[in-house]
């Protein structure tokens, strides 16, 4: 049982470890103190995650904290993982996207409308395969369109992304309510769950595999390609990037478009899990995704962060949720603890920054 647990965590974790965890520039430090500090700060969130798992494991006894528990943890974290992957790109690029939860909802609402239009509702469903394929692709396309709109507004109108995406946050959720008249579209065909939402491949939920694949690909793009390097450069010093001949505006539009696409994917995952839209359930998704990226050690000012550390930032709250239930602690404590971890993450980031400045 115990061995099984370890295997399950390392399966997903292992896939992510293959992605280079290093920042683009693992440089030697001028002093050993700075070096030790840097290593600690780079890995402390990973230590927190391991500590949490060990703690809950020992509290609960191995019979409770089992393979299905880990499966649930990853399954429940799959949507926020997809959002956090996009948010990592956006934040490293020096931007922010508050609209992701609303775009997720809007995408799922349109997808649900399309699915209902094709297969109908009730007890008999027509062409569920076609309905589901077209519907889920619609979610992705709709999300991408919102993302592109965010990017174009930020770049063309030179409005800070905080403001633009605060605006589209309201627009997307408002339009979702308009389209559904405030009532969720429920009763989509169960094929959604059997084919995608609840499907397992070799004991791993398909949604977890999709999330892991997205994070690995996005992580490699970030750490190994020119696109990734330009993202760091723009977040670090947009004017320097511009002078180096990088098309900064276009790049920022692409970052927001990718974010929108991934919000659409998360929207598709959402209806595939629940066979219903959930308009009011995603109000905090943006903050969960941003918190994951920040807990992972990225700077909100842009220029730093890695996908591997974001993955840890996603898993910490997910482990806490399940762990606190198993440990029989009121689940409300989860938000308290995550809040504390978030503040610690930024505090340590600040210490790191000032120590670097002193070193220079």
């Amino acid at each position, binding site marked *: 049982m115990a061995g099984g647990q370890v295997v399950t965590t390392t399966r997903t974790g292992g896939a992510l470890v293959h992605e280079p965890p290093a920042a*683009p*520039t693992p*440089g*030697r430090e001028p002093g050993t103190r700075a070096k030790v500090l840097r290593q600690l700060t780079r890995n402390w969130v990973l230590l927190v995650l391991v500590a949490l798992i060990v703690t809950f494991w020992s509290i609960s006894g191995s019979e409770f904290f089992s393979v299905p528990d880990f499966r649930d943890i990853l399954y429940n974290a799959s949507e926020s993982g997809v959002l956090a992957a996009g948010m990592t790109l956006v934040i490293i690029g020096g931007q922010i996207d508050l609209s992701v939860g609303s775009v997720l909802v809007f995408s799922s609402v349109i997808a649900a409308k399309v699915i209902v239009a094709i297969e109908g509702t009730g007890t008999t469903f027509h062409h569920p395969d076609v309905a589901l394929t077209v519907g889920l692709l619609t979610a992705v396309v709709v999300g991408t369109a919102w993302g592109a709109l965010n990017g174009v507004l930020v770049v063309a109108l030179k409005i800070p992304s905080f403001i633009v995406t605060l605006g589209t946050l309201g627009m997307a959720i408002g339009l979702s309510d308009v389209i559904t008249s405030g009532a969720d579209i429920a009763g989509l065909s169960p094929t959604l769950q059997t084919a995608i939402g609840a499907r397992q491949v070799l004991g791993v939920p398909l949604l977890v595999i999709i999330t892991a694949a997205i994070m690995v690909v996005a992580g490699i793009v970030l750490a190994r390609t020119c696109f990734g390097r330009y993202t760091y450069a723009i977040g670090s*010093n947009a004017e*320097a990037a511009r002078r*180096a001949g990088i098309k900064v505006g276009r790049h920022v539009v692409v970052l927001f478009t990718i974010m929108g696409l991934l919000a659409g994917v998360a929207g598709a995952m959402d209806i595939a899990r629940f066979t219903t839209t959930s308009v009011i359930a995603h109000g905090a998704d943006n903050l969960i995704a941003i918190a994951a990226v920040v807990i992972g050690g990225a700077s909100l000012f842009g220029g730093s962060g890695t996908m591997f550390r974001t993955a840890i930032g996603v898993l910490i709250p997910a482990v806490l949720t399940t762990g606190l239930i198993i440990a029989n602690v009121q689940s409300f404590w989860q938000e308290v603890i995550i809040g504390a971890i978030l503040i610690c993450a930024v505090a340590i980031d600040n210490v790191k920054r000032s120590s*670097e400045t002193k070193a220079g």
Partner: protein
Amino acid sequence: MGGSLAPGVEAVAPPSVPALMAEHISKRFGHVQALTNVSLSVGAGEVLALMGDNGAGKSTLIKVLSGALSPDAGRIFVLGQEHVLATPSQARSIGIETVYQDLALADDLSACSNLFLGRELRRPGLLGKLGFYDEARMRAESVRQIAELGARIPDVRARVKMLSGGQRQSVAIARSAIWASEVLIMDEPTAALGIVQTAQVVELIKRTRDRGVAVIVISHSMAFSLAVSDRIEVLRLGENEGSFVTRDTTDNEVVAAITGSQWREARS
């Protein structure tokens, strides 16, 4: 020196043709005439110090030469070929590199990444086409170029924000020097540096010049300009005020031209 223009040079480029020549450049901002009929030229393997008091038009001229500003009038020749420098990218594509006063470095990236920013070496084959860069090759090339320039950058993998002011300056100059095939323009490269670091910048500039690059450097420092340049061009109130061969002049002469306290025509 602007007057040394031979007619019909744009047709061929014999070795004696200047690497960069600007002719009768004028630029006006609203009611302010920033540049009036300014000319200068600099040859390959030559360092030209551009001096002048605040408001003399040095920065405006540099911006025109680096493609950041379009002049109202005047022509620019690179190796005898006339060019319209509409954007900095265009200037860079014909071998004119500029080191800005604010350095324009991406602090979160390594020195190596900054040297190659926007010009990454790609991996061979399909991976390269997919946008994968070749870190090992860029690192080796950075180390080689930095050694050749004699720049003091201890570790090209270190993030630029970890470096000292002098080292950051070295990264910025090395980046431009590596890519400048014809002209390297520097705006106040020693403004924030100490004595030792300034000496290093002088060395960097001389090594770049020895690679056959034409160097234009703006400086307020008389000592620096005398130490680094082959010629000194003085601007005053947006016009050419004097042109000096460095080894034949004195700081008094140059100061007189800068302040306009004494007219001194030193054109040869």
